[in-house]
């Protein structure tokens, strides 16, 4: 066990709060379009103003993802990315960046195949700060969450527009780091969200959960990011980035993602 790994997420949100800024959290699939792009993309995201990085762990059956993220997972798997490879990428990123929190986001089965204990210790040693398992609701997460906690890793959970107050209470008992509010009914990359509804929901979540709230699913442009950042602590941009990775020629991928994220950052800070 790597005694001393402490999640960088709370400190990051604290300093953002003190500076009066909101977090920009990019998401993209590790290994897309190839394993060699992952660490350069992470550094580019930080240069563009990312405060936390959500790194997708590719899975063959991403049930909660729309077509853009599905294709990214397929490209990553074809290029040979594995959960072990994702953790190694985080360790490599840490050699140059000791401060930016990194969250792994994916599905349960690759973690089960590695084994909970091995996963937790490897992720802790690599400097992972949070884990979001999309298909593990809180009631199926107790064992993994406890193991991650011993490694100083936060367990991030989703809340959705249909989550009732009782479930928000249940999630608040097991979640740490931040809450990921899924701002629309659908899969990743679906239609645009309704900012007024998001404002109303984040108010309700705050009355149950004492954690920063990130909002994602459906944030496709800087204007929406700006509007959402007025009512949330963090803005998650996923499919829009993944689309850029798909569209850009390999030589331009890193620069195009950096430019895109800089636009989001600027809109949120202006």
């Amino acid at each position, binding site marked *: 066990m790597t005694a001393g790994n402490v999640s960088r997420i709370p400190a990051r949100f604290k300093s953002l709060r003190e500076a009066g800024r909101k977090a920009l959290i990019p998401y993209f699939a590790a290994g897309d379009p190839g394993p060699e792009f992952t660490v350069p993309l992470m550094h580019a995201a930080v240069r563009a103003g990312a405060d936390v990085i959500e790194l997708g762990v590719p*899975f*063959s*059956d*991403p*049930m*909660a*993802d*729309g*077509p853009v993220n*599905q*294709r990214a997972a*397929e490209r990553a*798997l074809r290029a040979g990315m*594995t*959960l*072990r490879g994702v953790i190694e990428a985080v360790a490599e990123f840490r050699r140059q960046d000791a401060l930016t929190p990194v969250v792994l986001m994916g*599905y*349960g*089965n*690759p*973690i*089960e*195949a*590695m084994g909970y204990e091995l996963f937790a210790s490897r992720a802790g040693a690599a400097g992972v700060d949070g884990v979001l398992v*999309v*298909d*593990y*609701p809180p*009631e*199926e997460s107790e064992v993994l969450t406890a193991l991650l906690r011993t490694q100083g890793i936060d367990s991030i*959970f*989703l*809340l*959705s527009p*249909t*989550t*009732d107050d009782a*479930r928000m209470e249940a999630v608040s008992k097991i979640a740490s780091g931040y809450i990921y509010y*899924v701002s629309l*009914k*659908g*899969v990743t990359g*679906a239609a645009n969200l309704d900012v007024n509804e998001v404002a109303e929901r984040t108010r309700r979540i705050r009355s149950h959960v004492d954690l920063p709230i990130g909002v994602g699913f459906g944030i496709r442009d800087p204007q929406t990011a700006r509007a959402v950042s007025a009512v949330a602590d963090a803005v998650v941009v996923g499919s829009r980035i993944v689309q850029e990775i798909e569209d850009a020629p390999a030589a331009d991928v890193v620069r195009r993602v950096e430019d895109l994220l800089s636009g989001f950052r600027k809109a949120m800070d202006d």
Partner: protein
Amino acid sequence: MQMYEPGQIYDFPDSRGHFGPYGGTFVAETLIHALEELAREYDRAKNDASFLAEFESELKHYVGRPSPIYHARRLSEHLGGAQILFKREDLNHTGAHKINNTMGQALLARHMGKRRIIAETGAGQHGVAAATVAARFGMECVVYMGSEDIKRQAQNVYRMKLLGASVVPVESGSRTLKDALNEAMRDWVASVENTFYIIGTVAGPHPYPVMVRDFNAVVGREAKWQMPESFGRQPDAILACVGGGSNAMGIFHPYIAERGVKLIGVEAAGSGIATGRHAATLTAGRPGVLHGNRTYLLQDEDGQIIETHSISAGLDYPGVGPEHAWLKDSGRVEYASATDDQALAAFHALCRFEGIIPALESSHALAHAMQIAPGLGRDQLLLVNLSGRGDKDMHTVASHGGLSL
């Protein structure tokens, strides 16, 4: 972990859908509300006498139940050992056991006020059964089907369209059943207010495994009174094929407490387990999480789901219902497998000896029965769930024999 000891009352799953370590609800938060609502409504319906009476009436007058048990005398004589009996689910409307479950779920959808039905399908049998009940009740129906399967099952695609359903090709992943299930789930997340998702097997998140089992358990309940009535006693063994496992759970469940009746599930060994080209999840897989439940899966060492193979599209699935996973570990059910070639041989034997053309899925169960029958006494009774008829398989069987129709 809760253990199931002999003599203990079998009351799985628990209130959250667990069969020992298997089952459960492994979905994104976006689906939790819909599943909780469904579990609540199903709990109410299964204790509601008028709902049950309506279900029973539809099964009798629309599906054509009860299905008979038929003694295959010529085939048994040929094998020279145990007597082979068939539970004739092939005689149901639409030609398989699938209609039992789709009828139950469609009635539940009506009770919940949902006007739109979605379903996933592999070979098209469940899609046809869903399209059928949707037409019966005047509901909109959308069926998700992998584009590879659409190519292989053109006739069933046309049947669904005749019944008024839209068939949506799925182009992601391996473009087969598992991807169709992913896509139907994605539709449901966004449409849950007006849409009921009819899952076709005893898999998926709670309450699907228990609900689909219960709707199909009419098969085993009938057998339980038919056997003493026609043959003076219960069978010595019951055999059923297992893909997702809905026909098997349907006939096994009422017999789980009957310790004297051996239960045998037969998986698809494809080209042979050793070749890796198969769909024998319980025989060669290991536990993991897919499609909302923890169960045995065919997966690589990194936990990615691998493509399966079986001559029978209905068994070509990398997972299996969580209750089967539990019944395997607990030892109550024995799981065997039959290869493509063994299933085909059983298919032809049943055509010639009994004048019954079985589904290739059911032919797997028969293949194993034909293997063990000669070694058993003539007084032994083997009840095989003949889960479907083989009309849909004409092209597959013909092309395997070098013919094109």
